[in-house]
């Protein structure tokens, strides 16, 4: 049997008091006061955040947990073009999206977005008629950009404003197409192997050459997961269950998928390391999500969505370093 020294390259140190959890994350030591082996691990959980100012069912979310943007959506009975910015604690109103009426009353329903608070972008959406509208956000103002090559709603955006992707969605009918966005124009990319809508994927930290797509409607529920390499999609290990309207954050190699719907409304979270999916802590309140999420796999934020009614509540996913005693069980 290997020793700790052989595996790690150093001996287990003996200390009379524990080091700080943040400093010692990933280490193991022997506490001579308690006569126990201890380690520091990053423990994740969902906590409550500041409520979104309006109840929204769908809409675009992008940015980080402490600098996020929510835009568009379907406040009941309204055309939702509102924008709100989140600082990790509360939401502040920004300027409305720039898209003008096209004859479809829900102009920004099922829109998606990506990028950062100061360099964001959003595309597609529309109900009952899908649109191809694209807009860039600079932290203050939305500006119309080149339209997508096709009308889409319910698809995913990932990556930065100058190197993003839009994939999947409804046109109507589920779609497999991928489009690459450079901040000013669009080009066609490779098709997904499984056309889908209302799916999870990589978020703002995904890229044009490393994107992720998982679960969704095909139109029934699917658990299929695919990775994009800049030109083609490859099917990889499936999401642990089939669901749609799933929330998501992260990149192709470090992502989470959470909540959603497959008959009941779900609260569970699954974590992806680029190869395998595993269970992660659940949200407090389940909801159907339509891209109102932002952040990374270790610092995510989700807001709004569809529960029994349209929601305003926000939850944040984060980790804290915690010292734990090592046991044999």
């Amino acid at each position, binding site marked *: 049997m290997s020793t700790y020294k052989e595996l790690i390259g150093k001996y287990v140190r003996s200390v009379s008091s524990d080091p700080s959890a943040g400093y010692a994350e990933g280490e193991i030591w022997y506490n001579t006061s308690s006569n126990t082996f201890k380690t520091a691990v990053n423990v994740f959980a969902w*906590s409550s955040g500041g409520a979104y100012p309006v109840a929204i069912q769908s809409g675009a979310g992008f940015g980080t947990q402490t600098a996020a943007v929510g835009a568009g959506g379907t406040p009941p009975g309204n055309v939702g073009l509102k924008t709100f910015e989140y600082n990790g604690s509360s939401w502040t109103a920004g300027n409305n999206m720039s898209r003008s009426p096209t004859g479809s009353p829900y102009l920004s329903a099922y829109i998606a977005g990506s990028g950062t608070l100061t360099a964001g972008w959003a595309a597609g959406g529309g*109900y009952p008629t899908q649109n191809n509208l694209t807009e860039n956000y600079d932290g203050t103002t939305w500006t119309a950009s080149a339209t997508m090559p096709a009308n889409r709603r319910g698809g995913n955006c990932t990556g930065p404003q100058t190197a993003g992707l839009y994939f999947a969605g409804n046109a109507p009918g589920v779609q497999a197409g991928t489009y690459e966005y450079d901040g000013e124009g669009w080009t066609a990319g490779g098709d997904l192997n499984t056309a889908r809508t209302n799916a999870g994927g990589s978020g703002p930290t995904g890229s044009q050459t490393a994107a992720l797509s998982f679960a969704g409607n095909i139109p029934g529920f699917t658990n299929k997961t695919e990775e994009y390499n800049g030109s083609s999609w490859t099917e990889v290990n499936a999401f642990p269950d089939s669901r749609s309207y799933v929330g998501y954050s992260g990149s192709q190699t470090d992502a989470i998928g959470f909540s959603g719907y497959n008959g009941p409304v779900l609260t569970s979270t699954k974590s992806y390391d680029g190869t395998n999916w595993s269970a992660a802590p659940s949200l407090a309140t389940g909801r159907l999500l339509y891209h109102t999420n932002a952040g990374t796999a270790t610092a995510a934020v989700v807001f709004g969505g569809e529960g029994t009614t349209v929601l305003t509540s926000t939850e944040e996913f984060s980790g*804290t370093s915690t010292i734990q005693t090592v046991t044999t069980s």
Partner: protein
Amino acid sequence: MSLFIYGTATNTGKDFFTHQDRLDFFLAGYPGNVWVVGNNEKGAVWLANKNGITKTKEEAQAIVDAEITAAQEDWDATSEEFKEINHRPINIVLP
């Protein structure tokens, strides 16, 4: 002994339930401001600190049922267009 404590409390937003709360006890939110928390000291203290009102499981379920029934009736009375973009609220059974 029941595994859970049932109660109502208004979600006040940031830090209504914290990261540490989620590590300390089970917590789940339902329609009607109903919260189900682990039946332990930390869960009970959390509900008390949130000015929560403790309910029996039956009382909590009745609040949830009433909220869902009202939401279903609202949904039934909406336009076909609204119905196409919003799912009819489904019944929930508390744990």
